[in-house]
């Protein structure tokens, strides 16, 4: 907080002295209160990325390097061309802080926000995904409360707007107890034509600026950056810090917006999110190299007596700004009338490159539009935390339980057990596109109706791995999430990420961010995956204990499958088929579920990534797919290979005889092999008649592949070829444990 004198009155602002002086330089005069507060919002970390922007610069060249990338980082959403005249728009965003104090509305408005970002690109939102993090559920009513209402908030908002939630991920770890993570992703489907004629910019002078949707209230102003006492006489308790979502209005906005875009008269489109009208008007004109005159009192407000900066800064939900060609005004307004959506023409663009806002004839804002859109940046210090070396050198203790007891424990653990309790609450089928549904594959697969194309999407990252090594952990996250879409037959096309970290002003917290960005960047460049967007959430740090969340660079991958016959699913299909393990297993138990569930330790060496080997495995898998050799596929991650195989057995009530002879050498212990979380491995099912061909191809592609067993009709897994004596697992029991963990904790 800085104290400055504006109009003879002392006010607290979030800007530094330096920033405040910079505005004076730009304006060549003293800014007034409204202007100062607008700048202070636009320069906030949330809107300006002032800590992260220097680092994120390395992501910026996707549009240049990949011709199918139509919009890269910097736009409201990444957009790729998928052929046949269609584009996909997608983005992931965090809504952590609001959800931590009001899980239901916090999560719901998170969904509302991400939907608007996709809509801005002129695309119809067709899928949502929701990677989440909470403290451990067991004996923790607070975590249970957050989990229950975050899921309900997402469900109520997503279901009502008719967008299927096709996937997600949940991890429970005590570092998230006070700072839960609610990341939400949305995918939109549009045509190239609609995308091109409705950019998030106002390029043309003389166009109308229209506000449409919910009314503007005082809610959310508090959520931005500055002290409230200058705002209104209302006391603080009277003012909700968290917004109330209205999915019904949102659904109407989606339909009205898409209809309006179809007319061809909409020449610019922007949602009102953080920073409200200030952010929308300054970005539309700043990026479009135009200016605008805005009549503030045309904005329809919910409460009487709102001041000019309250209107400019309100973050009321469910609003969109349109830039409309003069000759299409009535056509567009007719659409809003049909849907009975409140709307107002609030101004016009011009070529002044200045944003002028009038309040009843008084000029209250008069600033170059670019001044707001381009904020200064900060270089932050980074330093590797001193505790890491100790943690990394932690050894895996000897185990005392039997291997089968360990596996029963693992499958029932919160991070490995079934997440059906979550996805049953989401309508994951509305839209009649969901071909591989929640639980049937590693990713959600949607068809593009009218083509023989399918898209697959998955989200995730392993926070425990990233905590020990953010560079390798971020890469490992990419391997896993790409692996998820590949397991369903899709080629990874593009990535977006959501960086969830602690306080960037603390060098140790910034180090995590910096290393994770490097990891994502290096991996994506070597595997040729464009990074088309991202979002940063800092300050996920407990102020009392001064501890940050485990670093979580959340990753979303969107992939494409050409042709229905190339879709692969997770469940094992037929008795007698062979089971293969692809990829070498290393003693990588650092940050594993085995360490935390069985030994209650967090350390050890986490998995590292060898890009060359990963690439070879992916190419090999696509070769198998081309030849129709794969009946089922699932990537190996938390809990290790036996857990993976059990999950594949459940659906069709099959079992497996496994023999791990030759799978690992003298140096590895049984637990190091069985519970290793080495990334990039897959378990596949294939017909025995193809055995020789598969082995030949594996040699040809120089990849590690072992036949490890066969499918049987009895619901059990037998394991031999290990150093200890062979043992047997009861799959009926495993399934019961797998299914009941979360319901037992949540549905008391």
């Amino acid at each position, binding site marked *: 907080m800085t104290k400055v004198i504006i109009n003879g009155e002392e006010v607290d602002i979030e800007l530094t002295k330096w920033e405040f002086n910079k505005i004076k330089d730009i304006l060549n005069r003293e800014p007034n209160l409204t202007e100062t507060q607008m700048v202070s919002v636009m320069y906030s970390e949330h809107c300006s990325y002032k800590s992260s922007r220097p680092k994120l610069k390395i992501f910026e060249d996707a549009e240049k390097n990949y011709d199918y990338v139509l919009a890269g980082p910097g736009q409201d959403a990444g957009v790729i061309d998928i052929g046949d005249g269609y584009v996909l728009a997608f983005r992931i965003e965090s809504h952590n802080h609001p959800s931590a104090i009001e899980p239901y509305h916090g999560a719901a408005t998170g969904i509302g926000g991400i939907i608007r970002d996709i809509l801005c690109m002129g695309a119809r939102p067709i899928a949502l995904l929701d990677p989440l993090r909470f403290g451990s559920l067991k004996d923790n009513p607070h975590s249970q409360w957050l989990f229950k209402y975050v899921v*309900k908030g997402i*469900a*109520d908002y997503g*279901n*009502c*707007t*008719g967008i299927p939630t096709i996937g997600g991920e949940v991890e429970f770890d005590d570092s998230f107890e006070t700072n839960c993570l609610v990341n939400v992703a949305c995918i939109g489907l549009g045509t190239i034509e609609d995308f091109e004629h409705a950019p998030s910019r106002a390029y043309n002078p003389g166009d109308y600026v229209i506000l449409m949707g919910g009314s503007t209230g005082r809610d959310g102003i508090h959520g931005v950056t500055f002290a409230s006492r200058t705002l209104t006489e209302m006391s603080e308790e009277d003012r909700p810090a968290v917004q109330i979502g*209205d*999915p*019904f*209005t949102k*659904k*109407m906005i989606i339909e009205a917006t898409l209809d309006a875009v179809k007319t061809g008269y909409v020449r610019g489109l922007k949602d009102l999110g953080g920073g409200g009208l200030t952010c929308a008007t300054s970005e539309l004109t700043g990026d479009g190299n135009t200016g605008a005159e805005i009549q503030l009192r045309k904005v329809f407000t919910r409460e009487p007596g709102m001041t000019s900066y309250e209107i400019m800064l309100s973050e009321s939900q469910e609003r969109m700004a349109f830039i409309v060609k003069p000759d299409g005004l009535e056509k567009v307004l007719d659409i809003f009338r*049909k*849907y*009975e959506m409140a709307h107002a023409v609030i101004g016009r663009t011009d070529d002044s490159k200045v944003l002028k806002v009038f309040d009843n004839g008084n000029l209250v804002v008069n600033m170059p539009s670019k001044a707001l859109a381009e904020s200064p940046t900060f270089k932050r210090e980074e330093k590797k935390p001193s505790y890491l070396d100790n943690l990394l050198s932690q050894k895996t203790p000897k185990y005392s339980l039997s291997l089968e007891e360990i596996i029963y424990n693992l499958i029932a653990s919160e991070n490995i057990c079934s997440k059906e309790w979550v*996805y*049953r*609450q*989401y*309508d*994951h*089928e*509305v*839209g*009649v596109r*969901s*071909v591989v549904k929640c639980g049937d594959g590693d990713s959600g697969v949607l*068809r593009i*109706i009218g083509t023989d194309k399918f898209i697959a999407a998955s989200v995730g990252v392993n926070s425990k791995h990233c905590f020990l090594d953010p560079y390798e952990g971020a890469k490992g996250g990419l391997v896993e999430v790409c692996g998820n879409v590949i397991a369903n037959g899709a080629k990874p096309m593009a990535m977006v990420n959501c960086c969830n970290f602690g306080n960037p002003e603390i060098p140790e917290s910034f180090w995590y961010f910096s290393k994770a960005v490097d990891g994502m960047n290096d991996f994506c460049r070597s595997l040729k995956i464009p990074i088309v967007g991202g979002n940063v959430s800092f300050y996920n740090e407990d102020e009392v204990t001064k501890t940050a969340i485990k670093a979580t660079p959340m990753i979303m991958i969107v992939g494409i499958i050409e042709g*229905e016959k190339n879709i692969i699913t997770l469940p094992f299909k037929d008795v007698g088929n062979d089971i293969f393990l692809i990829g070498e297993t290393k003693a990588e138990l650092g940050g594993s579920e085995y360490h935390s569930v069985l030994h209650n330790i967090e350390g050890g060496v986490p998995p590292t990534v060898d890009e060359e080997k990963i690439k070879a495995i992916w190419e090999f898998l696509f070769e198998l797919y081309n030849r129709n050799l794969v009946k089922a596929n699932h990537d190996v991650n938390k809990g290790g290979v036996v857990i993976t195989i059990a999950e594949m057995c459940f659906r069709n009530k099959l079992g497996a005889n496994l023999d791990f002879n030759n799978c690992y050498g003298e140096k590895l212990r049984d637990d190091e092999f069985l519970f290793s979380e080495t990334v990039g491995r897959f378990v596949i099912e294939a017909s025995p008649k193809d055995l020789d061909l598969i082995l030949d191809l594996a040699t040809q592609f120089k990849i590690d592949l072992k036949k490890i067993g066969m499918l049987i009709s009895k619901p059990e897994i037998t394991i031999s070829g290990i150093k200890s004596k062979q043992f047997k697992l009861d799959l009926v029991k495993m399934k019961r444990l797998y299914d009941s963990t979360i319901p037992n904790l949540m*549905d008391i």
Partner: protein
Amino acid sequence: MNIKIAVIQFPAANCDLDAIHVLNNVINVQADLVWHNHFKESNYDAVVLPGGFSFGDYLRAGIIAAHSPAIDEARIMLKDGRPVIGICNGFQILTEAQFLPGALLRNESLKFSCKWVNLKVENNKTACTNKMNVGDVLAFPIAHGEGRYYTDNLKELEDNNQIVFRYSTESGDLTEEANPNGSLENIAGISNLDQNCIGLMPHPERASEEILSPKGTVHGKLFFESIIDFIKRRVS
């Protein structure tokens, strides 16, 4: 003959385009998406009230839509025997508009539930079951939070053979486990006395194509083909 079906777009209906897709592209009949304020019954042979969250389900699922002018138009169709079909939210609207008896209450679990269930056909004389047999077990998905059917007049429903579908096991048993929401007597769908108005909670439009359905079941198609058949027989 040139059959025309209207699918009503209530504010925040969201299975409207899905129903249009199936009717137009799978069943191959002409189906129009009609905004609820613009609907005129005289143009159509049947009307479908699709799933979704009309008016956000605020106050009670279906109640605000039940006051839409589209319902007055649909009432004319109801009276002269043309099919009036309500799927999910459409079913809720039909009960709130009193086209069908009873009410749909919050699921016993208080949670929204999206999953595939089995339905036993109890009456194959209705406008959307005439291509099925009594006792057939169908696979349809559900996706609702307020689907618990309740009536204070069960006996009348049973006596008049108005129960069309019940939740069952795969082998057709009407067990408690097979009941996904606590509905009275496992009721999933009912009809009016004339059997031209049917409401059901499950989604036939999500079960009308092979690629979306469990192996060997495309039962939603039978539902829509029955409607077409009923229209043809009614006209001739």
